[in-house]
Each structure stands twice: as structure tokens, then as C-alpha cells.
């Protein structure tokens, strides 16, 4: 059912908080996993059971310090668990779909509350804006109506957001559909008839501009994406991955923040690549020199092979890189090619099997027979 959360005094954030409170109080969920404002002003996801604490909830916070699908995994992966509502932006919903397929999260007992994403800042940028009193939620939310998504002047959204062509919610139990809406008047939502009845909502159409505005945002973002993909492909062609990632210090931050990289026994965290001192000497002699730490490109190429089919483009890797490498651009640009080979769209459908765990006997019959 499509309906609208009523907004009073033009305060959409207060209305959203009220709606979340209703979910708890009506017993739809026992707890909410939602971005919360900490006393110091930063934002962190938290699992909230006390409705009064939802006064600090900010489901629209324009900052992304981690992909919250990871922490949905923590609270959902096995029984016993609570009945939880998880507030997630679009790239987090897509990551969740992949994590479910990888058996690192479960949709059982989970109510996903998806929010259209208007763009997010890196944490240090958000902290700076917040410190200067420049986080104006009303102004930020107002950009949803026209789809002219713009950061505070003089600042930029995260690299991944600037080229995100899927900012609209898909696959959520409750969808907060911000695009095209006058959020000062009401927040359009889509939810099941059953949930709507439980919460006392009657059907109500928004003004129907969502599709048009989404189309406009997607077109603008796709253009940015394609330009950046073009640039990075040219660089990969000319310099190779070892050129593009030349400044890598192999800190593994990209892997640590990646929602898809879940392996607890990752090869690169194991002693496999702690070589004997004499081995480094061998390599140094063979090529005249050897980069240290060793196996740096092996790390990136292995990670590409292990996860890029599931890369949903949240760009946390880029945000986490201490040397500002275009990790997300490389992974997305290469991911697009490899995903196309398998006609796979990560995050689209939990029923769609992961390309590397499934196969058909009668595919690529010519491969291996030459």
C-alpha cells in the first residue's frame, strides 16, 4: 500500500522519528537498528529498544561511516534473535541482499525500512559541517523534491554517492520514498497492507512525481559514473592496476570496511604471506627490486576475484583509504564488466544465485576444449 506519514510544522525528521516510535510501540518490531546522533554529534548505527531514545534517531543523516548491512548481519545471522527493524539506505539494502546470499545475514524476523538516499558525506566532512552548525536537515531534505541533490557549498558528497545511479529504495519492507516529495508536508511510504493496517494507515497517494525525479537523478548520476569509469579504464589500460594503486600501503582498510568481504579467515590476514627473509632477497635479486610490503597487487587482484561480482558500489573502500586511492572506482568499473559476463546484478534479488556458486552444465561449452 502507498500512503503518507503526516508531517507537522514542516519537520520531516520529527515525523520520521515518530513513525519509528510507532513501529516499536505497535509491536511491529522489538528493536530498531537505526543511525543515531551521539552526544558528541557524530552518527552511529545503534540497536534501540527504548522508544524515548529515538529522539536521537536520524534515518536521513547525510553521512556514511560504514555500510550498515554489516551490522545487520551481527544482529540477524542466527537464532535466537530479536524481531528487528533495520533502517537502511539503498546501497545498504543492496549489500544486505548479497550478505544474505553469502549467509552472513538473515531476512527472517527482519523488517527492512529503506530510505531513498540524497547523498552522504565522509565522516570528517560531516564532523566539520556539524561543528560549524552547517548540517541543515530541512535544507538537505528539501533537495529530494526537485532531485537537484547538492552538498553544502564548498563541500562534496562521497565519491561513490556522486556516481551512484541507484539511490532509490528497492526491496524494502517499508520504503520511505523521498524523491519527488514535498517532505515538509508528508513522507510518502510504501508498505504491506498488513503492516499499514497494524499501524493505522489508510491508502493515500503522493503527488506522483517520484518516478520522474528518480529518472532525473539517475540520469545525472549515470553520466558522472560513465565519465569516471571512462577515466579509470583509461588509466588501468595505460598504467595497469599497479600504476593506479601505486601508493597503496596495504593497510587492508578497503577490505575491513567492505560489506561483502566477510571472511574471518581471509588469506591476507593469515601468515600465508609472511615469507621467509631469504624469499624477499630472492625476489629482490630476480627483478632487481621488490616492493614492500610484498604481494600488494596480489591483494587487490585477489579481492577483485573474490568479491567484485557482489560489489554493490557503496564506495566505503574509497572513503576508508588513507592514501585516497580510487578503490571504489576501480572495483565498480571492473565489476560492471564481470557482472555483465554473468548477467548478474548484485543486490537485485535474494533468489538470484551468486555467479560463482552456481553453474549450468551447458554453458561456455567451448571453453577448455581447444
Amino acid at each position, binding site marked *: 500500500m502507498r500512503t503518507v506519514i503526516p508531517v507537522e510544522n514542516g519537520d520531516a525528521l520529527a515525523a520520521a522519528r515518530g513513525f519509528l516510535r510507532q513501529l516499536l510501540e505497535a509491536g511491529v518490531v522489538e528493536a530498531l537498528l537505526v543511525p543515531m546522533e551521539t552526544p558528541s554529534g557524530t552518527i552511529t548505527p545503534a540497536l534501540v529498544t527504548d522508544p524515548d531514545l529515538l529522539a536521537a534517531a536520524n534515518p536521513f543523516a547525510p553521512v556514511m561511516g560504514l555500510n550498515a548491512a554489516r551490522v545487520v548481519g551481527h544482529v540477524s545471522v542466527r537464532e535466537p534473535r530479536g524481531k528487528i527493524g533495520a533502517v537502511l539506505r539503498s546501497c545498504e539494502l543492496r549489500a544486505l541482499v548479497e550478505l544474505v546470499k553469502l549467509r552472513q545475514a538473515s531476512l527472517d524476523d527482519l523488517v527492512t525500512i529503506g530510505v531513498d538516499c540524497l547523498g552522504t558525506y565522509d565522516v570528517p566532512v560531516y564532523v566539520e559541517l556539524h561543528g560549524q552548525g552547517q548540517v541543515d536537515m530541512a535544507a538537505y531534505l528539501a533537495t529530494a523534491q526537485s532531485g537537484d541533490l547538492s552538498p553544502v557549498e564548498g563541500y562534496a558528497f562521497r565519491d561513490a554517492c556522486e556516481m551512484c545511479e541507484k539511490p532509490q529504495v528497492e526491496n524494502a519492507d517499508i520504503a520511505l520514498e523521498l524523491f519527488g516529495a514535498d517532505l515538509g508536508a508528508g513522507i510518502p511510504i510504501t508498505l504491506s497492507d498488513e503492516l499499514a493496517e497494524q499501524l493505522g494507515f489508510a491508502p493515500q497517494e503522493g503527488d506522483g512525481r517520484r518516478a520522474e525525479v528518480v529518472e532525473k537523478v539517475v540520469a545525472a548520476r549515470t553520466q558522472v559514473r560513465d565519465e569516471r569509469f571512462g577515466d579509470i579504464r583509461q588509466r588501468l589500460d595505460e598504467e595497469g592496476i599497479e600504476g593506479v594503486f601505486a601508493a597503496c600501503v596495504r593497510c587492508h582498510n578497503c577490505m575491513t570496511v567492505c560489506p561483502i568481504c566477510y571472511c574471518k579467515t581471509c*588469506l591476507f590476514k593469515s601468515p600465508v604471506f609472511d615469507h621467509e627473509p631469504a624469499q624477499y632477497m630472492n625476489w629482490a635479486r*630476480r627483478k632487481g627490486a621488490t616492493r614492500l610490503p610484498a604481494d600488494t597487487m596480489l591483494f587487490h587482484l*585477489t579481492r577483485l576475484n573474490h568479491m567484485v561480482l557482489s560489489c554493490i558500489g557503496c564506495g566505503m573502500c574509497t572513503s576508508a583509504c588513507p592514501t585516497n586511492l580510487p578503490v571504489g572506482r576501480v572495483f565498480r568499473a571492473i565489476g560492471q*564488466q564481470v557482472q555483465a559476463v554473468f548477467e548478474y546484478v548484485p543486490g537485485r534479488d535474494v533468489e538470484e544465485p551468486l555467479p560463482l556458486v552456481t553453474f549450468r552444465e551447458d554453458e561456455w561449452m567451448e571453453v577448455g576444449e581447444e
Partner: protein
Amino acid sequence: MAEKFEPKIVAFLCNWCTYTGADLAGTSRIQYPPNVRIIRLMCSGSVDPTYVLKPLLDGVDGVLVGGCHPGDCHYQSGNYKARRRIIALKEIIKNAGFDEERVWLRWISASEGQRFAETVTKMTEFLREKGPNPMRQKWAV
């Protein structure tokens, strides 16, 4: 005078088919170039992409992955999964600036000693033609 270029090939062969095929080539005294270094695994499905990438980055000129023909894998589906993995790997390295033609996947059965020898011969000639892997010179990887 510069030494004549001889390619080095690392081959990952499954125990049940291709390795046995290589063994047969040997016991049948079929001649093939000595450019290949064979590593035996239980199944082509156990070849992690890392195994292929590591020698390529070290400067090995070609990597051969050998398994049972489709339908014949000792573990039912290992080679079908290997096929997808190698297809993904080739697409990835191609886009990352490598020459994906240096990676070969071939189905060779335990009775195909001749086919094993021919494959190594062809791959050696192909790589001679192609020249050395540029990674032989690149230390900053």
C-alpha cells in the same frame, strides 16, 4: 648476444584427470617442451584465483589450469565451478591491464597423454611468440 627467450609455464592440474594424463605422456615417452612446472591439486575446482595471480605477478609467462572434461569431475561439479572462476578471472585481469591470454584452461582426461603434450607444446609456442611477461621487469607490484 641476448639469450633466447624461453617461456615459463606453471600448470595446476587435477589429480584424477590432467595430472594422470601428464603422467601418461611421460610413461608413454611422448615428447613435449620442458617449459612447464606442474603443481598437482585434487581438483580444478580447488584452484583459487590467487594461485593463478601469484605466478603471473612474479613474472611467469603463462598459467595452465587443467581438469577433467565436463561431466567427468571426480567431485561432480568442481570443473564447472572452475570454468566460471577462470572466466571471471580472465575478465578481471584483462580490465586490470594484464594479458588474459596468458591464462589457459584445458580439459584433459587421464587417457589423453597425447593431448597434454600437444597442449604444452602449443602453449609454449604461443608464449614464445607473445614474448616475456612484462611482470618480469616490474618490481612495484
